[in-house]
């Protein structure tokens, strides 16, 4: 469960990237976040995992109230979220295997379990043959898929994906969507910022549209509704 109440975010340079966000995302939902470049989609998403702090307002993610959370609790919040970053954020000096494994090592899984799970998710995104490569030896789309693999590796309750198909061709993108659909059908919440209108049209889900730091549309499949407080 993710809930934003009167959330404002003003960056130090005076850009107002979130102007009174009020959103509630229930466990198990699939929600698209769309809007033009620079609208505030990534900011919205970054506030969920506390990369950015709101200037004011309340954010609740699962059982964490982010305005009250202590620094030492942040890692535990993030472990409940699987995050696909817009710029991938792979560790440059770890191999693909180690990058994905990292997300499991932090929760101190034992090495065998980690190996099995890493190979499984790498297979899912079609990159099992790249286990020993380093990030800079991969194509853009391949790096993006590693980021996706890492996000789903520890079976998080919520997957937050920022533009996860930006560097993927339509076929590969469809493959990724199938994966997200499947984990969503198993109960995982999925929040996905995207520019890909084909995907939004094809896989129908709730759509949140942000424009210039304001939520201008919050629409369940097929219909409009105004966001309630």
């Amino acid at each position: 469960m993710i809930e934003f109440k009167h959330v404002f975010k003003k960056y130090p340079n005076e850009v107002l990237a979130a102007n009174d966000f009020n959103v509630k995302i229930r466990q198990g939902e699939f929600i698209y976040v769309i809007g033009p470049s620079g609208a505030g989609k990534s900011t919205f998403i970054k506030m969920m995992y506390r990369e950015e702090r709101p200037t004011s307002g309340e954010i609740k993610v699962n059982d964490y109230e982010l305005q009250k959370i202590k620094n030492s609790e942040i890692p535990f919040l993030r472990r409940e979220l699987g995050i696909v970053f817009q710029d991938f954020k792979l560790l440059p000096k770890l191999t693909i295997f180690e990058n994905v494994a990292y997300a499991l090592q932090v929760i101190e899984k034992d090495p065998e379990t980690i190996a099995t799970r890493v190979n499984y998710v790498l297979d899912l995104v079609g990159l099992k043959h790249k286990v020993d490569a380093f990030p800079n030896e991969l194509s853009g789309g391949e790096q993006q898929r590693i980021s996706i693999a890492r996000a789903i590796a520890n079976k998080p309750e919520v997957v937050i994906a920022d533009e996860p198909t930006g560097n993927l061709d339509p076929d590969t993108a469809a493959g990724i969507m199938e994966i997200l659909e499947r984990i969503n059908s198993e109960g995982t919440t999925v929040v996905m910022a995207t520019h890909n209108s084909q995907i939004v049209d094809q896989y129908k889900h709730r759509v949140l549209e942000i424009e210039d730091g304001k939520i201008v549309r919050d629409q369940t499949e097929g219909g409009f509704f105004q966001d309630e407080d």
Partner: protein
Amino acid sequence: MKISTFKRHVVESLKSLKRNGWMSVAALSAVTVTLLLVGILFSILMNVNKVASDIENDVQVRVLIDRGTNKKQEAKLKQNLAKLHSVSKIKFSSKEQELKNVIGSYGKEFKLFGGDDNPLNDVFVVSAKKPEQTVTIAKEAKKMKHVYDAKYGGASAKKLFNIVDNIQKWGIAISLLLLFVAVFLISNTIRITILSRKNEISIMRLVGATNGFIRWPFILEGAWTGLFGAIIPIIIVDLGYVWLYGIISNSLASTGYSLLTPSVFLFQIDTLLILIGIVIGAIGSGISMRRFLRI
């Protein structure tokens, strides 16, 4: 922390050392050069100190024996002197020998005073265990029978003490400065390498690693860097010291002064270097990271 996690940290730290390539080489060589400097200068300073205190210990009390004292009485006096617990060595010098010294320093005219004209006394040259004790020894000796006078160099000895004291004080000051510099440079180097990995650290945090989890491999990597960086300095200092010890000891032999024994001294300095390396590497690493672990 689980054992498997700890193992992971160790493996990870070594891997990272390897994968950071030139960065690791640069950090390692900074540690190496710094510890080399510390090793060499410390060796020199500590030996200068040692020789200085040898010189200081070399100050002697000259106990002038009453003329007409017979051999037996002299032996008794020597025993009494030896009983003073602060006395380390007693050497006899006859008045003829004393006259030779005078002639050596002031000229052959004094030959006139040879034989029975010799106005000098037989002397016991007494060495103190510690230089501060010379004064007491002289006082005690003066009270003894058959002692004409007891002198301990007076002003000139005090001047020597003063010089030696100064050398030792400066030695300590330089050592402290050097230690401070070494600690600073090593931790600073480690800090720079960590600054350059700011990005990596923030990614680690973003995927749910706790500060402890992130920190350990870095701390261990710092410790390895310190440890490996101590190897070459230790080899150079050890070999160099043994070599120079051979040469210098020889030429010092006649003076009675000596350098610090390699076996003991090298063990100490090696330990010091390894400790500085590991401890400062690890701590420097741990502290530098704090900045990045706040957010």
